[in-house]
């Protein structure tokens, strides 16, 4: 078989294998129309799971790795610029807060060394870059009488989630009386989660931890801290922002 015949076969194989279903075509348009022209938060063509009494109405999915190809020799600033090309600087998401759908404008923030990006609701929260971890905190800060409310994003370079979970759980058990077993989840991020709770009062401290694979033999550990009464408020908002967390990966040749 000569090269031209081979090219023809590849083309025909692809044409045959990728036939378009008219119903899909129509459904995709309906979803686009709904999101752009009616202001609805219609879900994507895939089935979306409901988690912990809130509905993700945005069509995007959990912590997704974006390939930023061919940047191995480019300096950090070029990577940041490329990220800004690929991601909208801001977007509107619809989230379910305490049973009510709420549209929020969220803004793009780059994490440490531009290894991840996350969209933050900057009307309510600030993104603070730290030496070892970044934090999302209420802005303006809460009154003194409230327990800590924050979401910390930390990268652990040398331990995969499966190796880290027990360690983190043991630490939580020193701090909290009620710690759940690790649970595998795919929303708002794909990985493991568990929760620690101090007690049953409105201001009992609560921590929720997500551990996800950073795709470089390590992990991202996301620690949300709030209090029991704030679970459906700050807790839900943190989860919605986490749903807009993306790992940035450079693709090797």
């Amino acid at each position, binding site marked *: 078989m000569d090269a031209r015949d081979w090219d023809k076969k590849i083309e025909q194989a692809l044409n045959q294998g990728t036939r378009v279903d008219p119903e899909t075509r129509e459904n995709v348009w309906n979803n686009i129309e709904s999101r*752009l022209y009616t202001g609805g938060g219609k879900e994507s063509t895939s089935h979306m799971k409901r988690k912990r009494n809130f509905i993700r109405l945005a069509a995007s999915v959990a912590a997704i790795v974006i*390939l930023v190809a*061919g*940047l191995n020799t480019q300096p950090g600033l070029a990577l940041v610029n490329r990220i800004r090309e690929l991601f909208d600087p801001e977007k509107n998401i619809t989230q379910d807060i305490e049973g009510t759908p709420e549209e929020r404008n969220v803004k793009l923030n780059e994490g440490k060394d531009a290894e991840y990006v996350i969209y933050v609701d900057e009307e309510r929260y600030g993104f603070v870059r730290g030496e070892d971890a970044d934090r999302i905190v209420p802005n303006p800060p809460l009154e003194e009488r409230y327990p800590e409310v924050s979401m910390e994003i930390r990268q652990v370079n040398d331990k995969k989630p499966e190796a880290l979970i027990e360690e983190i759980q043991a630490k939580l058990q020193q701090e909290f009386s009620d710690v759940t077993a690790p649970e595998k989840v795919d929303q708002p991020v794909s990985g493991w989660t568990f929760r620690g709770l101090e007690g049953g009062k409105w201001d009992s401290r609560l921590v929720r931890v997500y551990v996800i694979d950073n795709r470089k033999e390590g992990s991202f550990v996301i620690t949300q801290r709030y209090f029991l009464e704030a679970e459906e408020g700050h807790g839900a908002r943190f989860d919605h922002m986490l749903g807009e967390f993306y790992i940035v990966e450079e693709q090797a040749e």
Partner: protein
Amino acid sequence: MDIQLIREIKNGNKDSFKELYEIYADGALRTATGITGDRQLAGDAVQETFIRVYRNLDSFDIGKPFKPWFYRILTNECSRLLRKKPRMVSLNRMCDEQGCQVADREREDYTDLYNAIKSLKDIYRVPVVLKYLQGFSEKEMAGILGLNQNTVKSRLFKARNMLRKKLEAGEGRIGLGRKGLG
């Protein structure tokens, strides 16, 4: 035609955006299906692409060709969604609602070849899909994928050789040649 449409869309003309969709939807769905190997993911990718196109049209340079810009966004969306789901190459995915019938000889060859394409690593499969479904040149693909043109050329060359080898390895099997997974 694209330029006029784009101007009208920028002015908020919904009918023009629908027209753009009609022009690009089939090609986009085919390409996304070829890249992701999953029709649902493909639908999601195309949906997100058109939304991103609509929202970022102001940043599009009207002096440049629209198609490569569009497909750059689409390939990025496909990559994004692929990272969520593990890819599976399964003969079952090639079956339609009627099931996996034994087809005529010609159809069988294309099924095996399509499966072979789907089994390629992303870095090889994406250029193959862009070239053979959309007819992009190596230069255009380099722009879409953010790669050096020689890299694109090399990957296409390797992909075609890999496909040949995969197909040669599969010759002589009976029926649809159910390879299964792994």
